[in-house]
């Protein structure tokens, strides 16, 4: 049998697409999702105050993403629509992060297999539980792979370096200020390509995007911290360390 012109084996195609997506993601900065005593903290290095990488999805569920903005924004919107529809159809309590993570996994998997260009994104879906034992964190990659993480997860450019730092310093049940310090420290370790590699980068409220799922809040538990509130919290972490 003669092969058609331009034939590539499925293995080759998957390899090429994976490499392409990985390269795209590696260009971006990292995002850290880390648990603390009263919830889950999301910290992203993001110089833009309006183009968010972290978002509320539902009462107890939030989303963080790295990669191509238009692609993860698309997934974020679809996630909010799906969860709002479920909450409206059933009840607010029946909206779960597992359902959302499954939907994302299927969508990303289908895009990876069927389209020529895979999505260059990596996503975290997290749900805060009534106690820290019930907290759920899912990490989803461009090919639809899904992993259930405990305690912390890092996605994006230098996620390996960031993860190493998190592994070293993360402590279960740590207070908010300590979790933020651990996250910021880990993000500082990784220097995204294109920035000076001298390790003197300082992350402040101007280039950090911080959000949290706070289990002590009623109903909608997601909250953003920005501006002076974030500056104050960062100052606390400096004294805590």
């Amino acid at each position, binding site marked *: 049998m003669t092969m058609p012109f331009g034939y590539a084996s499925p293995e080759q195609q998957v390899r090429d697409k994976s490499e392409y997506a990985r390269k795209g993601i590696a260009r971006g900065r990292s995002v850290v999702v880390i648990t603390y005593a009263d919830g889950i903290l999301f910290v992203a290095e993001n110089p833009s105050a*309006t183009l968010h990488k972290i978002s509320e999805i539902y009462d107890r569920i939030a989303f963080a993403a790295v990669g191509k903005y238009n692609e993860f924004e698309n997934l974020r919107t679809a996630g909010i*629509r799906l969860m*709002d*529809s479920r*909450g*409206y*159809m059933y009840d607010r309590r029946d909206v779960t992060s597992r359902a959302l993570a499954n939907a994302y996994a299927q969508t990303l998997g289908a895009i990876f297999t069927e389209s020529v260009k895979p999505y260059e994104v990596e996503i975290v879906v997290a749900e805060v539980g009534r106690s820290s034992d019930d907290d759920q964190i899912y990490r989803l990659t461009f090919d639809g792979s899904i992993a259930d993480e405990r305690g912390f997860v890092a996605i994006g450019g230098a996620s390996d370096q960031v993860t190493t730092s998190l592994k070293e310093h993360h402590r279960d049940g740590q207070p908010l200020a300590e979790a933020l310090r651990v996250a910021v420290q880990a993000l500082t370790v990784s220097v995204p390509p294109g920035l000076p590699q001298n390790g003197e980068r300082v992350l402040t409220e101007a280039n950090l995007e911080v959000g949290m799922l706070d289990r002590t809040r009623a109903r909608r538990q997601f909250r953003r911290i920005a501006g002076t509130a974030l500056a104050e919290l960062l100052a606390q972490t400096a004294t805590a360390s």
Partner: protein
Amino acid sequence: MTPGTSSFTDFLSQSAPHLLPGARGGLPGPVTEVAHGTTIVAVTFPGGVIMAGDRRATQGHMIAQRDVEKVHHADDFSCVGYAGTAGVGAELIRLFQVELEHYEKIEGATLSLDAKANRLAAMVKGNLPMALQGLAVVPLFAGYDPDMDAGRIFSYDIAAAKSEERTYESIGSGSVFAKGSLKKRFRADLTQADAARIAVEALYDAADDDSATGGPDTIRRLYPIVAAVTSDGYRRYGDDEVEPVVTAIIADRSTSAGG
């Protein structure tokens, strides 16, 4: 370009139209034997607005429910109440709440108070066919407008004609009596506590003359729902806060029945 909509209602009408209120199609004839909610009042005061509603639902001449809640949180800076068919009203409010929250999450910004009032008008209009068959419901919407640093009230008729009130408003079967009561007691310089008091008192007057409006039930300790919206956001009064207001009104009425 089709970036998709920020409106939950529009999204639902494309993805799952059967879930929208009023999507069940025409009914064979007028429907009468269903539960109805009755009187809601709203009163502005400098810097905010109070909304209060009685707890009674009626079905013809019967009391269908004594502890129904007709005043609801719409979002952090607004509240909404309804009068009319209970089932339709509850569904309308549920959709309205999701609509506001959905926009907020997708856009990362809240709608202006006028936009919220307009979205509600569109939903009331969607219910017009059902209203003509006897399943009418009208909402009362109130909220804090940060651009004006003031409380604002919006009322609607069944054809969704929206009108704004800057002082007080009431809807439902007891609204004639409630408005009469508010007309005599409203002043432009009310405090929040005063506004809550005259709102509860207006419901008392409505219950006095309208059989479908429930007065405070001191035996079962069922009191009107009272909510306030100010620059600090939405806050529903606890029963422990409404109880002294009700007790004071009853005590005053006992000494001077004219009220």
